[in-house]
């Protein structure tokens, strides 16, 4: 007699151990990026060539700041999981593990760098406003 239900036995199945979760996450993030990326290309491209002060003021504004943060967070997770699939296709063993850890770390590092820069720009803008008031 089987004590597990059919559903229970299907959970966690497959070589990934996580079913279709990875695939579904990539689908969701790709739809999110489909909305975010066209605006981001122009928002970011517009900033190239600005002076340091202009750049700080520009990315302290709500729309460029929130859009850049969203694209970075969603985009870097999308990158990490996509690069993981590539590495799983072409490498194996400890090398695979090491490289997957590397791309995950890199994507988190870039996310942290961008969020830190954006946060500091917002603080600088807020401080400048305090002085002028």
């Amino acid at each position, binding site marked *: 007699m089987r004590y597990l239900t059919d559903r229970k036995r299907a959970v966690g199945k497959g070589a990934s151990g996580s079913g279709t979760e990875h695939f579904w996450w990539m689908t969701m993030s*790709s739809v999110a990026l489909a909305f975010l990326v066209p605006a981001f*290309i122009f928002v970011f491209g517009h900033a190239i*060539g600005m002076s*340091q002060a202009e750049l*700080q003021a520009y990315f302290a504004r709500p729309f460029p700041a929130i859009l850049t943060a969203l694209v970075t967070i969603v*985009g870097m997770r999308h990158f990490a999981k*996509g690069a993981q699939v590539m590495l799983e296709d072409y490498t194996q063993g400890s090398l695979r593990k090491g490289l997957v850890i590397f791309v995950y770390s890199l994507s988190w590092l870039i996310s942290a*760098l*961008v969020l830190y820069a*954006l946060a500091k720009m917002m603080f600088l803008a807020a401080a400048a406003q305090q002085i002028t008031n």
Partner: protein
Amino acid sequence: MAEPKRVERPLSPFMIGPYYRPQMTSMSSILTRITGNALIAGFLLGAWWLIAAVSSPGYFGVVNWIVTSWLGWLIFAGMAWAMWYHYLTGLRHLLWDTGRGLDVETAEKLGWGAIIGSVVLTLLTLIILAIF
């Protein structure tokens, strides 16, 4: 104790070249992977630039010089193309996920659409950014 048996699992072989003639479908597919992974270069440069923007003016000057040089322009123009290409083939993937457009003729047309479309969108992006 049962000795854990070491199973030599095969990797998916790299088919293009020795076993598989390059085709629009396989080439446009691998280019999706290449562009997607190459985009990390743009994010690295972009993140470095934003960090420099909240650092000392001297440090910003160095990084901004790279970003606004011909090399920076080349990288970000290349990134714009990679982004648009990955974008269009990503939409193709979402279409395929619904079970549509999977026949060879349509898939090849969509491949051409992504290549031509990405070049057109990149040129449009560069023109719009140059004007505004």
